[in-house]
């Protein structure tokens, strides 16, 4: 590359409280380049972007944009300086004309009145950049979603952008809409603009990106041309597998999983929710830990939500105990003996204003009550029992749950489900965001529960957890179940291989 890079970020450091989000990360984007930025959750991608666009201030580091030092205080200032960000959703007003939508918030005036002619011209010129010749006076709502989306992008980019950031732009789009987006990206590149493209969908990255920067734990670990790095390499670099490889046990799943406990408790075939889950089949055997592996956005959580009745499938069949199972809401799944520990503790797990006891008893409470009145004495006994057996560190059952550490909150939520004596427990990222000690305790606990006969479905982005903990692993990739591994087949290369390349129907049960 002869031309100087458009953007260079070096030695970027950022802490939030005691947490290190960025630790000397770097990123270089060339002129007219579509640059993929990838990494696990918490790798620091978002922080990098937010510093660039003025949401956060860097602690240390240097940013050069178009050859000059660059620092902005707000997203508006970033946009003004030539860096536009495109969000997932179309935020436009359908009833207003295309012009009104494009010029919203930057109306042109003449003699104090709106200068419609100038605004129509402006809108037309902007859209012509994207080969869109439409009547800008018509209401936006009468155009197809794809066109609307194009208009939204045109509005966001405007005329002054030199660098466009797309943060998981396709996660809520269907295939056709995504196709439109890719056309736009190519168009931008043809005009010499640069694009930073954040996505977890590998195929997308390979289809439209020129280069890739891989981040992990707040550092930049690799940067290469897309054509020089294979999918498998990319994933293993992203997950940090080269370094950690073959270091023996990394989790507390000490014993090898027990022998298959028998028939399937639950099976799913051809599940689809029309978006994130496209064709997923799997089976869970009694008293066994089954793992779901896959990249972010592969549809693991969404599949679990279908199982739990938190969303409803468009297609596919589920069987519980050999009978058709179609929960309409979580309460149905709970009644059938299923528990679901969500990956997002704060947003849909804990009720922060309530106490440890109230949180733990939330699901069981109706069963403990007589005539609608909570049996406080029995409840206290049960809660005290779980606080002891799960080793929850709190001042007592009446402490507010929001005052507890992440690991202890997670244990309270585990207690919420265990109190129901479920048959099947879904654990979505059970050890995310909790300290090492608590992590090991939770892993041990899960192993013990399975040994006692509980069926567990464990979703984890930590490869060790799935590989060492599960007796059977299903790998999901872009909404498809692409591999069904058991026992000796559950090895790191196999799982990575399936995450990177797996296709088709390998997992029909």
């Amino acid at each position, binding site marked *: 590359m002869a031309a100087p890079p458009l953007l260079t970020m070096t030695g970027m450091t950022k802490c939030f409280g005691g947490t290190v989000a960025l630790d000397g990360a770097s990123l270089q984007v060339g002129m007219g380049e579509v640059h993929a930025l990838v990494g696990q959750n918490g790798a620091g991608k978002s922080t990098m972007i937010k510093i660039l666009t003025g949401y956060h201030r860097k602690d240390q580091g240097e940013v050069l944009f178009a050859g000059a030092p660059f620092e902005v205080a707000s997203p508006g200032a970033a946009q003004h300086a030539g860096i536009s960000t495109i969000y997932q959703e179309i935020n436009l007003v359908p009833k207003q004309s295309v012009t009104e939508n494009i010029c919203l918030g930057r109306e042109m005036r003449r003699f104090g009145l709106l200068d419609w002619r100038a605004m129509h011209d402006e809108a037309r010129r902007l859209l012509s950049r994207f080969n869109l010749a439409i009547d800008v006076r018509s209401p936006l709502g009468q155009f197809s979603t794809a066109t609307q989306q194009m208009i939204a992008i045109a509005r966001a980019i405007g005329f002054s952008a030199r660098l466009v950031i797309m943060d998981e732009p396709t996660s809520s789009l269907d295939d056709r809409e995504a196709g439109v987006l890719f056309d736009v990206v190519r168009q931008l590149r043809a005009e010499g603009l640069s694009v930073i493209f954040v996505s977890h969908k590998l195929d997308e990255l390979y289809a439209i990106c020129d280069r890739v920067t891989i981040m992990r734990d707040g550092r930049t670990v690799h940067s290469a041309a897309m054509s020089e790095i294979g999918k498998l390499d990319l994933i293993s670099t992203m997950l940090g597998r080269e370094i950690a490889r073959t270091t023996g046990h990394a989790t507390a799943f000490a014993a090898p999983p027990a022998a298959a406990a028998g028939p399937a408790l639950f099976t799913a075939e051809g599940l689809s929710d029309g978006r994130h889950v496209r064709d997923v089949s799997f089976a869970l055997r009694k008293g066994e830990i089954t793992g779901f592996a896959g990249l972010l956005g592969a549809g693991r959580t969404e599949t679990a939500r279908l199982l*739990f009745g938190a969303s409803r499938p468009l297609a596919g069949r589920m069987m519980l105990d050999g009978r058709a199972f179609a929960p309409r809401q*979580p309460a149905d799944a709970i009644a059938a003996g299923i528990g679901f520990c*969500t990956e997002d503790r704060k947003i849909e797990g804990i*009720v*922060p*204003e*309530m106490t440890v006891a109230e949180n733990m008893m939330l*699901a069981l*409470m109706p069963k403990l*009550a007589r005539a609608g009145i909570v049996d406080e004495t029995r409840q206290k006994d049960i809660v005290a029992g779980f606080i002891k057996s799960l080793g929850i560190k709190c001042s007592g059952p009446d402490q507010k749950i929001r005052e507890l550490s992440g690991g202890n909150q997670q244990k309270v939520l585990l207690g919420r489900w265990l109190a129901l004596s479920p048959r099947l427990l879904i654990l979505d990222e059970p050890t995310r965001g909790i300290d090492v000690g608590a992590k090991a305790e939770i892993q041990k606990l899960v192993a013990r529960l399975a040994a006692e006969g509980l069926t567990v479905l464990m979703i984890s982005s930590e490869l060790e957890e799935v590989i060492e903990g599960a007796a059977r692993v299903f790998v999901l990739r872009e909404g498809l179940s692409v591999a069904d591994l058991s026992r000796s087949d559950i090895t790191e290369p196999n799982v990575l291989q399936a995450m990177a390349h797996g296709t088709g129907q390998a997992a029909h049960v």
Partner: protein
Amino acid sequence: MSDGGLIVSLGRHGPLLALLALIVLNILITPNFLTLQTLNVNLTQVCTIVIVAVGMTLVIATGGIDLSVGSLMAIAGALAPMIFLGTLFTIGPVWLAVTVAILVALGATALLGAFNGWLIARFNIQPIVATLVLFIAGRGIAQVMTNGNLQVFKVPEFQFIGLGRMFGIPVQAILMLIFVVVAAWALRRTVFGRQVLAIGGNDRAAVLAGVPVARVKIAVYAISGFLAGIAGLIVVAINSASDANLVGLGIELDAIAAVAVGGTLLTGGRATVWGTLVGAFTIQIVRYTLLANGVPDAAAMVVKAAIIVAAVWLQQRGKRA
């Protein structure tokens, strides 16, 4: 309820201390404050607000709001006299007519409240918008039912709820106390109360924990409607007349203010019925203090607004701390 429970319900003691300070202030500056008559005046004026505010506390505990309470009061106040005066149909003995009138009026407002809840739970309409429907339409319905006429009556059997006394205590004060005690107890000790707080605290977590969110929301708004109906009956009983234009006018704001001043979190998840009682009395006594000392009602409203702002501000600070 045990002493410990009472103290927990009161939460931070700010509202209670403010009320006590006001009372002390009045003893010092307001002539004839410590008389039975002053107590009675304040009690009759505050009872309906407290009864409505108890329902409002439950609604706000789920993270909602109910603007329709005033209109529902007007409906109950219009419906009951139509029945016991025989405008709709004739019922023989007076006691039967009064019983039917009360039951029908309360049934109607509870159902309309359930309708509010249904709009909110089923269609995910924001509570402020959903209850705005009946806020506007409800008073209209009451006016259409009565042709906009004033209904005047003298039926002691019915007016007992507004004018009667038991053991020397006004009946409406007894009713108020019953509702406060039951609601405060239910919020802490019943499955329903816990579910109300769980929904207000984190509705997504509540759904995933199997809480019947739609059912609880509908119930909460139905209770709010029912209590508004009772308040409406008390108001018309006191006045010996029902004017659909005036019954319950503006009470939603008094009720919300009482809830806010009492220390219930307006975003839901933390609620105190005892606090609401204290809040309603605080606002009432502030108004009384100003009026008794010659400050006009219009100025009293400004002071009322200032108190609400101060209460919410304290709440915000408390949350951050």
